[in-house]
């Protein structure tokens, strides 16, 4: 462990020394939102007429180096913003950083000048990433939503390669991986359970979100800890120019947001919050119809403060607080039953960023992420079940980024996580499971983006792990190669190993209140995946982008909870099964990124399977998990009809989900009980192979219309959305009614057409 720490610090020192060796005549600068002065991370900047380009870092900073003295035209672009060009004079003297303002697409330009260059003269984008889908907040706001709640995860589910398990689940199944194989970061802090209302809504309040990058695979070494994909969510930093806010009223929830500059221009802040208010509706239904109904609400709040401590140092403090609460009181008067479920996330993140010289950035972050769930079931004062589950993740991160060379962009860093895992399940006052454990995970990475030839770019990386429990060392090599065949055509290859040291125990789809996250213990092996991705990208013009990627993933030691485990000690080797899996497929996506009509069409052909040898899971034979879908087609469109109306629609068609088909009947014999005393006289189904049957294909159309107007001089939006326009209810479950003889097999379907309305005022 000591050597590991030394290695990490040596690399940091090494890169610090590199940062001193600056190149000459670079163009440096920041790309920011013109309306709020917020920096724009991952924005592109190119020098028109050359093959030189770069992308901004998290501070919106870029460096274009190795330029001869002269006058250059740079063009900056960012998803959801108007591109802009600027002339820059480079001399043999170091120049001050530029500030390039980009206007959001929502802001209409008075006069749009489109500069059409000869295609062969278009500059090559710097470091196009493999398997990354960027989504800006504007896209999320425009997409049709369920229940009037704009939803980050549901927008992501409309991307090729991303699937949901059902209409009522916001969990992400990316390229055959299960939801726990996706690392979800919010402002660089891990969020463990990203859902509300049993998975119906995600925890990310769209008002708080600035940008999202979904890395479906082949992600660089700076990300680690999950074996499949990464969802990197960056929240609003706050308007640095003026105070603004919004308030939105919906049928089941309301939300509000406020952001603005701090006094004396020392920084900015952004806060947002939302809460559901279904309780009165449920109360009314409970009383008017005399039926036992639960009471439920969720709320969440985001806050972020950016402090410019010096002109080189920025401190960011961000937090998230969310909770779901469900209570149920019912049953007979003399034997009442009460159920309480409560779960939620809290995160706190602090991050200090400092510019080392002109071309290097260092950051230090300390964060806490807590996921907690608890449930208790009582009958007439007797505890039937009482459970408390909590994962506390204390993390320290440090990154050093060197931007000084045009041909290299080196980054290194450490990430130390200390996990406290607590799980108590008691029954009738006695502990059934009692675990109070702690362990630490240390990782270090280094990566480079190296343009070794004008058209070739290599992105090597290495991530090393040391996991305290079990004293495990793991090395994840990563490599990506990009070939710029033409300025508008790129070929990409990426691959590597991706390790995971924490697993999710899930007791059912969408039942997020019962999810349990547990770090691996000394009896377990980490899950790791080997991925290979081949990609092709073609941009026929500034507005269109066509990408296709094929991928193959081999999964090793994939953990799944052993439902028959009844060990109080909860040893990992007894609580889990470890299996193998594969996932492969091909994705196509045509995206229109700008103009009055925007949107995308995507198609995915994919397979994924799992094998848990020598277990009860499909008798140890290979099976397709429930989220395996062969075909998936998606089309979305967002159209600015005029200054008053926006329209958007999404349509999805996919293969039906797998379901296990009962094949026979038997009597369940239980010791000391006559089958006649049991439900349905003990009659029980015999199931066939796991997910051996497929429901019919699903397809659904969602539409939204937004009326933009003013409300007492304030900009306002009336949002009318219709979920499942032609009421094609998707299949969810197959159940067998054993009370009938012969039995009756029924299919349970999900939501019909759901119209919703919400009203939003900005001030």
């Amino acid at each position, binding site marked *: 462990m000591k050597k590991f720490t030394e290695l990490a610090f040596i690399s940091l020192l090494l890169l610090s020394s590199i940062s001193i060796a600056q190149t000459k005549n670079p163009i440096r600068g920041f790309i920011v939102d013109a309306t709020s002065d917020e920096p724009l991370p991952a924005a592109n900047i190119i020098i028109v007429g050359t093959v030189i380009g770069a992308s901004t870092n998290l501070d919106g900073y870029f460096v274009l180096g190795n330029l001869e003295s002269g006058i250059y035209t740079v063009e900056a672009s960012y998803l959801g913003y108007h591109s802009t060009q600027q002339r820059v004079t480079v001399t043999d003297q170091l120049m001050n950083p530029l500030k390039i303002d980009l206007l959001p697409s929502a802001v209409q330009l008075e006069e749009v000048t489109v500069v*059409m260059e*000869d295609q062969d003269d278009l500059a090559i984008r710097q470091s196009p990433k493999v398997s990354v889908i960027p989504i800006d907040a504007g896209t999320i706001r425009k997409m049709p939503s369920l229940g009037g709640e704009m939803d980050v995860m549901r927008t992501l589910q409309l991307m090729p390669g991303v699937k949901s398990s059902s209409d009522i689940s916001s969990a992400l199944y990316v390229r055959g991986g299960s939801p726990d194989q996706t690392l979800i970061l919010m402002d660089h802090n891990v969020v463990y359970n990203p859902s509300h209302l049993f998975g119906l809504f995600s925890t990310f309040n769209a008002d708080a979100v600035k940008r999202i990058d979904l890395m479906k695979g082949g992600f660089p070494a700076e990300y680690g800890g999950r074996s499949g994909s990464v969802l990197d969510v960056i929240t609003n930093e706050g308007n640095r120019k003026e105070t603004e806010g919004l308030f939105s009223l919906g049928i089941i929830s309301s939300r509000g947001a406020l952001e603005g500059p701090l006094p004396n221009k020392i920084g900015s802040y952004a806060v947002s919050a939302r809460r559901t208010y279904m309780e009165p509706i449920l109360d009314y239904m409970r009383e008017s119809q005399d039926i036992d109904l639960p009471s439920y609400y969720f709320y969440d709040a985001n806050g972020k403060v950016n402090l410019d401590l010096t002109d080189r140092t920025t401190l960011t403090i961000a937090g998230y607080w969310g909770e779901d609460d469900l209570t149920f009181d019912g049953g*007979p008067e*003399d*034997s009442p*039953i009460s159920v309480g479920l409560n779960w939620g996330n809290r995160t706190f993140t602090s991050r200090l960023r400092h510019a080392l010289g002109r071309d290097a950035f260092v950051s230090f972050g300390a964060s806490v992420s807590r996921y907690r769930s608890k449930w208790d079931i009582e009958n*007439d004062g*007797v505890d*039937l079940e009482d459970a408390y589950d909590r994962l506390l993740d204390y993390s320290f991160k440090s990154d050093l980024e060197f931007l000084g060379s045009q041909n290299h962009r080196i980054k290194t860093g450490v990430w130390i996580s200390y996990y406290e895992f607590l799980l108590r399940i008691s*029954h*009738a006052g*006695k502990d059934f499971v009692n675990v109070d454990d702690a362990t630490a995970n240390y990782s270090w990475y280094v990566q480079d983006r190296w343009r070794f030839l004008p058209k070739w770019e290599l992105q090597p990386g290495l991530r090393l792990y040391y996991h305290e429990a079990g004293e495990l060392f793991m090395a994840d090599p990563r490599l990506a190669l990009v070939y710029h065949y033409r300025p508008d055509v790129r070929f990409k290859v990426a691959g590597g190993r991706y390790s995971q040291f924490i697993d999710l125990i899930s007791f059912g789809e969408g039942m997020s209140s019962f999810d349990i996250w547990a770090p691996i213990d000394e009896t377990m092996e980490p899950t790791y995946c080997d991925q290979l991705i081949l990609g092709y990208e*073609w941009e*026929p*013009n500034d507005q269109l982008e*066509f990408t296709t990627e094929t991928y193959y993933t081999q999964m090793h030691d994939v953990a799944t909870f052993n*439902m*028959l485990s*009844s060990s*109080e000690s909860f040893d990992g080797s007894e609580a889990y099964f470890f299996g193998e899996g594969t996932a492969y497929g*091909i994705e*196509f996506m045509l995206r229109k990124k700008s103009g009055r009509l925007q949107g995308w069409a995507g*198609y995915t*052909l994919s397979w994924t399977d799992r094998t848990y040898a020598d277990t*009860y899971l*499909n*008798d140890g034979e290979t099976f397709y998990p429930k989220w395996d879908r*062969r*075909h998936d087609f998606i089309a979305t469109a967002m159209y600015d009809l005029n200054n008053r109306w926006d329209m958007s629609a999404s349509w999805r068609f996919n293969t039906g989900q*797998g379901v296990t*088909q009962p*094949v*026979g*009947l*038997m*009597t369940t*014999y*239980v*010791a*000391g*009980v006559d089958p006649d*005393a*049991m*439900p349905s*006289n003990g*009659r*029980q*189904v*015999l*199931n*066939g*192979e*796991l997910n051996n*049957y*497929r429901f019919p294909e699903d397809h659904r159309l969602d539409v939204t219309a937004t009326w933009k107007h003013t409300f007492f001089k304030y900009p306002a939006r009336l949002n009318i959305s219709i979920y499942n326009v032609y009421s094609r209810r998707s299949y969810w479950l197959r159940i*067998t009614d054993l*009370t009938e003889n*012969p*039995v009756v*097999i029924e299919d349970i379907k999900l939501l019909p057409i759901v119209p919703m309305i919400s009203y939003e005022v900005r001030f």
Partner: protein
Amino acid sequence: MKINKHRSTNQILLGLLTLAVIGFSGCSDQPTEVEDYNPEPILTAFLYGGEDIEPVTLEWAGGIYAYYQPGNNAISGADVKIWEIGPDPVQDTLYFEFNDNLKKYLPTNEAEWGVPQHLRSYRIEAHKASENIHMWAETVIPDTFTTIITPEPVGFDSVAILDTLNRNMAPIELHWSQSALAAGYVQTIVCLDTTYQPLDPDWDPIEDEIPEDSSRYSFDLAMAGQDFTTLAWINFWYEGWHEIQNQAVDPYYWEYFFSVFRLWMGQVNDLEYHMNGGLGVFAGITRDRYMVYIEKVE
């Protein structure tokens, strides 16, 4: 903007061709419904330490869409036997014969054989060559243990009897000593009255219908090492006599029963049988039994 139309057209054509090829390839190997299910034999036997042998069932699984009557699927004419296994067996083989009235197998030499002994291991086999049935399983019977029940029994025969209780009283509590070789403890509660008179005071015997196909059975689970539980009143739904059993069970039956519980919860796909050559369960159990009359409070 200059665009090479031929180059673009070729790219589009190539893309469409690729799409067509993979689209057709994706139509293969779709998982399909299992339509030709071959029924499996199911063998079930429970050995209770120190108690008389109970009948053994051997039957075929039924078809999913067929009318299901367990006796109709009984397999007659099989060679069924149980014997003690281990280094120093003290019991000979116990033979069974098919009873056409019960549609079950009854022991033929029970008087000489005696009763299953605690801490002893047994094996069951069932063979019927003509139908290719060759099944076997093994079990061990956990040691005796003592259960203290609150309220205390007021009468005792082969089954201890508690005083009459109702749901306004404190719930029944069980404390027990540990049973060697027990993998866990199962508490079963069965209402013996089949008239289904709900205890719920809001239930109206005139206006409300008697529930059909209702369960008179509930259960509780305790892991090995646990020595206490409270039987909440939610386990008692009907007025009348109830039998409560506290069972110390062998490891195989514990897994089987846990899988029954998980199957009812929809969390597993199949049961853990530990039966070779087919399905079913062969369980070794040591139990304490109690009777209690639960009365309704108006």
